[in-house]
């Protein structure tokens, strides 16, 4: 069995036990899910301040709906969809939109003593932060979650051509931004 299979099996087992109301399994599942959910939320929302609130809501939705996970496909993929829907749904909440507008986008950036990959990802989301929300969404769903264009179109209830167009425009904008950023750092 490949390591990935072991992981999937472990996640599925925990999910089944959590669905049956097993408290330790629920807790373990939360520990596994928390960083993944927070990372996905950060990919989808602009800035840091909303990440923890939305992650909390998404995790709660996952646990409350876990009995509906039928074991078809990876549990993680199922959970990712729940998180994405939670984030998309939150944008319709006027109170949250107002709150988001008041919060500092940059927030406090955390530890310097982290792997280079962390900094790379922070730069990537900084690029995403500059994109229109719709373009950002499709790029994240396509490249981060690996969803197909038909799947994204179905998820967002938009035509497939719209998804393709948003991906193309989003990539173009990021490429333009990167063209500005490719020069060496000034001394």
């Amino acid at each position: 069995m490949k390591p990935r299979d072991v992981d999937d099996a472990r996640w599925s087992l925990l999910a089944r036990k959590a669905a049956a109301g097993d408290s330790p399994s629920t807790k373990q599942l939360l520990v596994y899910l928390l960083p993944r959910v927070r990372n996905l939320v950060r990919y989808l929302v602009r800035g840091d301040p909303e990440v923890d609130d939305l992650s909390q809501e998404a995790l709660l939705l996952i646990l409350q709906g876990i009995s509906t996970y039928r074991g078809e496909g990876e549990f993680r993929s199922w959970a990712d969809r729940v998180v994405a829907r939670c984030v998309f749904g939150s944008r319709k909440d006027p109170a949250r939109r107002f709150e988001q507008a008041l919060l500092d986008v940059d927030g406090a950036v955390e530890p310097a003593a982290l792997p280079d990959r962390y900094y790379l990802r922070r730069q990537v989301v900084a690029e995403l932060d500059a994109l229109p929300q719709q373009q950002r969404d499709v790029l994240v769903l396509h490249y981060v979650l690996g969803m197909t264009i038909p799947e994204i179109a179905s998820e967002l209830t938009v035509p497939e051509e719209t998804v393709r167009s948003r991906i193309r425009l989003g990539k173009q904008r990021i490429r333009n931004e990167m063209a500005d950023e490719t020069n060496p750092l000034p001394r």
Partner: protein
Amino acid sequence: MTKSGNTPSENPDSVSESEVLQLEALDSAPGPARPLSAAETAAMIDRLERQLWGVRPRSKRLRLGAVLGVAGAFAAASAAAAIYVLRPAEPAAVTAPNEALRTGGTPEKPSTSVPEVARGTADEPTGAPAPSLASPEAPAAGPRAVDDKVEGSGRGVIRHSKAAADQLAEANALRGRHRYRQALDLYLRVIERYPSSMQASAARVAAAAMRLEQFGDVQGAERLYREAKTTGGELTAEAQFGLAEVFRARNDANAERQALHEFTARYPDNPLKSVAERRLQVLEGR
């Protein structure tokens, strides 16, 4: 899979685009979300469990992100109190729940957030004590420095100070739009052209923090923080704290500890003192 990019993994063009965009498949490794300390993780999971099992009504849950965000803004504002003006922050009481959540000792890093800088010119008083424009700090040299040429000429100093402030404001605006490279260029231009101005002092700290956070350029950050410390100005405390962050980035615990001790000894009234002390507790296993 067709060229239309239906699945990123099956489309060669799409894969290469993914690499260009640096968008990786989701995992649990650090980033892009800000990492949580062990205490924050435990608090969040505990809260979720209580919500799930119905111990606590959902509507009354703690708005963790909002509290962290507002507290972060408050701390950053405090850090730059002398000549910086951040967006409105909540009173100290708002930070209390945040403090309670951070019992694990992982320090907040408000000071390394690049500070928003008030325009701080003679035309636009910030409300903070205004440093004397007629007696700027010792210049950091540089033959192209224009402000050296106008020292002693009050009107000229004010004019150049305004130009420096405008550029600084523009750099801040660029940073706000995540144009980090351009913002950094502009910060460095302010330092180069007006090396002895208070705006240059702010720009050094801002540029250093950006190098550390946005670009992972530890060496460049250290150089700028050291310059900010040496040239004096309103933000020497923040520069000293920034140096501790640089050492932390290098995993040099001894140097970090030494820098934090120096910070707490030299700036006992700085709002970041409590952050430094908590970090020292972690480093010294207290």
